[in-house]
């Protein structure tokens, strides 16, 4: 985690107080290489000389707007960019994201949110290339290996079909939360999922037969009537 905090962060914001506040939060989180700019011109100079790794851009600046600034930066750099703006209309957000920003945060914001989003972006952009491995997790006596698509229980191995695998993966990503049947169907059958509700029920029953000790009284894969399903995973690590 700490390696991300060695990255150089550029804050472009014309309000000195906001700049200082963000600076304070970032330093508290462990970032130390922080650059400030109060205008587009300063920002471009810093981009050229110090080569920041990530930039937080305000949209309204004294000598132009953040959208124009991003366009200028994109001419020579592909650094990730977060917009931080008081302009929260859909058009502004779409414009900012359309120009290639990695995120768009509307003021007023919680500092924690900004830091978390910043870290997500740094991790995504600068993580060493590695093959994403799907998780292996424990449901009581069953071990679900999503990478291998195998459920192991009582020394038996049950193979998951492609659809069961996709459903279990979606449920695991939202473990502990209700996932609507629409979202589950969509993750398996795509946007034309309508009419697959009954098929979904059949798949859920097959998954239960593989993961539950007693499929008719499920403990881990619960039905939430009228809404969808919930996977209960007790995190052990």
């Amino acid at each position, binding site marked *: 985690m700490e390696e991300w905090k060695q990255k150089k962060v550029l804050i472009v914001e014309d309000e000195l107080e906001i700049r200082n506040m963000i600076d304070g939060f970032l330093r508290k989180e462990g970032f130390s290489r922080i650059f400030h700019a109060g205008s587009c011109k300063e920002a471009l100079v810093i981009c050229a000389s110090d080569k920041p790794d990530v930039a937080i851009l305000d949209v309204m600046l004294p000598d132009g707007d953040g959208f124009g600034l991003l366009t200028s930066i994109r001419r020579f750099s592909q650094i990730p960019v977060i917009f931080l703006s008081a302009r929260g209309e*859909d058009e502004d957000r779409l414009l900012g994201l359309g120009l290639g920003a990695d995120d768009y945060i509307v*003021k007023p*914001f*919680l*500092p924690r949110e900004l830091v978390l989003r910043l870290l997500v972006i740094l991790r995504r952009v600068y993580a060493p290339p590695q093959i994403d491995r799907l998780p292996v997790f424990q449901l009581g006596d069953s071990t679900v290996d999503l990478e291998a698509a195998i459920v192991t229980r009582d020394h038996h191995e049950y193979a998951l079909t492609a659809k069961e695998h996709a459903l279990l993966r979606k449920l695991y990503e939202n473990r502990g939360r209700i996932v*609507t049947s629409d979202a589950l169907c969509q993750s398996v059958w795509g946007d034309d999922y309508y009419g697959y*509700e009954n098929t979904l029920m059949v798949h859920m029953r097959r998954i239960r037969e593989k993961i539950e000790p007693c499929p008719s009284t499920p403990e881990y894969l619960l039905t939430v009537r*009228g809404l969808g399903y919930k996977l209960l995973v007790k995190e052990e690590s």
Partner: protein
Amino acid sequence: MDGAAQILRRYTGASILIAFFLLIVNYIILGTFVFKGMNEGSSPVHVTQTVAEGLHQNGSHYTLEPKAQEWLQKSQAWAMLIANDGKVIWDYAIPDQLPRAYSLAEVAQFSRNYLQDYPVFVWEHERGLVVVGYPKDSLAKYQFHFPISWISDLPYRLLALLFGNVLLAALLSLFIGSRLIRAIRPLISGIHALSEDQHTHVEAKGMFSGIARSINHASSLLQEKNALLKARDEARSNWIAGISHDIRTPLSMVLGYASELEESDAVPFEQQQKASIIRKQGEKLRSLVSDLNLVSMLEYEMQPIHTKPIRLSTLARQIVTDFLNNDLAETFTIELDVTTEQCFVMGDEKLLVRAITNLLQNSIVHNPSGCHIHVQTTLSPNQRNALLIITDNGKGIEHSMLPDLVELPYSSKRKSTLHNGHGLGIPMVARIAAAHHGHLLLTSDTGKGMTAELCFPLSS
């Protein structure tokens, strides 16, 4: 244009009626006024008959009754009796130059025409032929001869004449009427355009040029007023957007530093609690600011709506799930009841989510001690609308307060202001429903819970 056709129909009908009426009146006038003079006094034939009947033989003398004599005097007429041998055997005031004997040819001649320019009339008498003569140039005498077939055809001819007149009147009035309509039609379409609040320019010429100018003037006045109204709405909406924007930056700092203090271990617990209150209030302010902006955009129809077909049941499931996933207090239970999955509406997903979320939030905020919330998606009884009904069994609101709920706080339509919440939630729902050509229906009474029914037209 329907208006023009109606005018033409009325005009033609009225013209035909007028023509028919004129015709009748003319016949009556002709009969009573013009032909009245024809038989003025007593007709010559009648006088002649009276003379013939009033002439009696008295031996070799003839006497004329005084009444007949009086009539002759009155008309300054003379009379004679021609015997069968052609000799005049009796006369009365006969002019001197007239012969006293006539041949058969002469009799035949004057019986049809004139006797030496005297208009004469004859009547048969037991002794011969009574002839009554009128002064020269006092009467015109004509003979008419009609074939019998002509006479028997006369009723048909008169009828044909009548119909011809009516037809001619109809054609003429149609012709004149259609010319009139051609002149009026631009005016009519101009007025229709005015009523639909569209810009219109009527070509000003002919007898209606004054009206056309007035219509053009009214149109440009309306356009100006509309532009002014639009500009004012835009200014208002921009003003609110501007204020919301200006509040965001200071609020960022309030929220930022408050949450820092809240999380800081260096700060005593009590101060952390205070910082937490500041942050929570700041977050309320944040939602108020964005609600204010959205409501003002909806109010002045500045919000662009990006519609797509949305399945209402999917949306409801997602929202209810979000509430359940986001740590809803134990005291609240939410139940979803989908009666049909085939319920699509054309809508802006973000706005619809906002509306439904606001309604659920409303039930939660106003029933702090908890309640059961029932969400139902269904079709209206007439199968034309999609309904989303949210019912809670909470404390409800006084029936008379319901109309107030959908009005904006501090608006002139609202009788009293609410103290709970910032009061933009329900008005926003009503405006989002209106922006989707739907409506919000609230039913409630004290202690009876609240039912909010969102009604949208079905997407085909």
